[in-house]
């Protein structure tokens, strides 16, 4: 065999691979799964944006600045935006410290036992309970029993209900992030004489922070879109004050509404101006609100990760 044909032979070995039929099929399947999900999302967004465009392009400021009216051309979503903003804020203030605290206790402080695994399983089950059930809970506890504190069917009661709804999810995602902190990192802290608090505060929490943040903000975004529990705790679409400003604390103990409630209400109206145009415009605004929360989650996550030096 001369030199030339040896080279050709080697080249042939390099070129001829085994056919990867299954791999090719798999690739096609997962790609179509991705495209299908994107397609559904695109159709949905296209639909609401085209429907809502008339309202958003002609009277955007008026739409987000005025209250609910019986006239579709004048009606706005101001009370809904304020309501959703306050609900999200109350939910975050209540659910985040409680949930993250519970997760830290379960993962770092509690000695693993039958009781802790029982608690763990039950928190997971709670995360799967339908949101309507949380609405019933909110109605009987926060609206009725604690009515003297919350003022009945108010943003305060509704925010507490939503906090109860997201609490299990906050605990689970935070616990998962804390569990993913490498044990050698804890040992390094203990090895130089750190206390449990110092190890948790200086090493475990900073490491787990990006995961905790993403999980909690995503759960908040979900809560902001919930309509069912709010209907049960008494969200309304009539007889609301429209004079409130953003930081007006009076509205916390008054009748309230929220974006998902307005959307459900409008889509049931006979007038096309409400059912199609206004509802779609309100949906776009709610999607923007949720998008804002998710963007915040991503930005904060990458900032924390850079701080972590990864």
């Amino acid at each position: 065999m001369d030199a030339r044909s040896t080279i050709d032979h080697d080249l042939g070995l390099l070129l001829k691979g085994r056919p990867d039929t299954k791999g090719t099929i798999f690739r096609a399947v997962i790609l179509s799964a991705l495209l299908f999900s994107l397609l559904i999302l695109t159709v949905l967004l296209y639909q609401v944006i085209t429907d809502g465009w008339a309202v958003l392009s002609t009277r955007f400021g008026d739409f987000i600045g005025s209250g609910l009216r019986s006239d579709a051309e004048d009606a706005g979503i101001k009370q809904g935006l304020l309501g959703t903003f306050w609900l999200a804020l109350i939910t975050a203030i209540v659910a985040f410290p409680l949930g993250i605290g519970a997760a830290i206790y379960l993962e770092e402080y509690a000695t693993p036992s039958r009781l802790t695994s029982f608690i763990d399983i039950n928190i997971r089950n709670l995360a799967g309970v339908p949101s309507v059930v949380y609405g019933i809970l909110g109605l009987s506890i926060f609206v009725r029993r604690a009515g003297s504190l919350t003022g009945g069917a108010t943003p305060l009661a509704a925010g507490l209900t939503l906090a109860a709804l997201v609490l299990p999810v906050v605990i689970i995602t935070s616990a998962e992030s804390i569990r993913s902190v490498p044990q050698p990192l804890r040992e390094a802290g203990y090895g130089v004489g750190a206390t449990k608090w110092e190890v948790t505060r200086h090493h475990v929490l900073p490491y787990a922070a990006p995961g905790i943040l993403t999980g909690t903000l995503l759960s908040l975004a979900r809560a902001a879109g919930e309509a069912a529990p709010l209907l049960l705790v008494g969200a309304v679409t009539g007889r609301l004050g429209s004079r409130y400003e953003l930081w007006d604390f009076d509205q916390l103990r008054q009748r309230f509404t929220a974006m998902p409630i307005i959307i459900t209400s409008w889509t049931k109206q006979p007038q096309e101006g409400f059912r199609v145009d206004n509802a779609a415009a309100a949906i776009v605004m709610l999607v923007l609100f949720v998008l804002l929360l998710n963007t915040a989650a991503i930005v904060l996550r990458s900032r924390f990760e850079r701080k972590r030096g990864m």
Partner: protein
Amino acid sequence: MAPDQAPVASVMARLAPTTDMSGNKGPLVSDETAPAVLDAKDLSVYYGSFRAVRDVNLEFAEHEITAMIGPSGCGKSTVLRCLNRMNDLIPSARIEGLVRFRGHDLYDRQVDPVAVRRRIGMVFQKPNPFPKSIFENVTYGPKIAGTPKGQFDEIVETTLRKAALWDEVKDRLQDSALGLSGGQAQRLCIARAIATNPEVLLMDEPCSRARPNRHWSGRRPHARTQGRIHDRDRDPQHATGSSGQRSHRILYR
């Protein structure tokens, strides 16, 4: 088994025993009468119902370096982790027997494991630097111990010099420690451990991943007064030897 051929490298403590795990004498026996700083009596360690270590009797004298050598899984790390209560972190682990530090029972109910670990430092098998800067890694121990910040610069330089890392990192002390190579990271962990001035230093195969080179003299820690690691030996011939050659005593298992 010769120390150089031991399948698993050694454990280095600053102190040496007068008896070893199997009853053999180490080849480099020195002062038999030195007072025991750390000792274990009939120590058994359980993980759940599994008995990982059985009836170990050890004594470590002051100003000595002891190496424990034995095959993988024979319990070197387990014994070592009992000596500063690091095994407390494993929920299923428990011990029987006695571990004493200067005559005091380390497992007494009143003993605070945090206080134990401040006096008995540890370097782990795998380098585990904090995801912080090199500077912060070294100063973390002194910081939580309440050392004034004004001393940090000096502590960082001295400890990094002792760990033979100073020359390589002196221009990037504020960089993340995660950017260091495996061997550099381990030397940083040694610097971090000695920055708190522990009375005993437990080292769990700290050099099994460190590449021996002429600049790396951590493999030959010298016990000075107070048993401090000291890097005066820069002889490359010795730098490639096993940790056993650096020790006053060697325990075989």
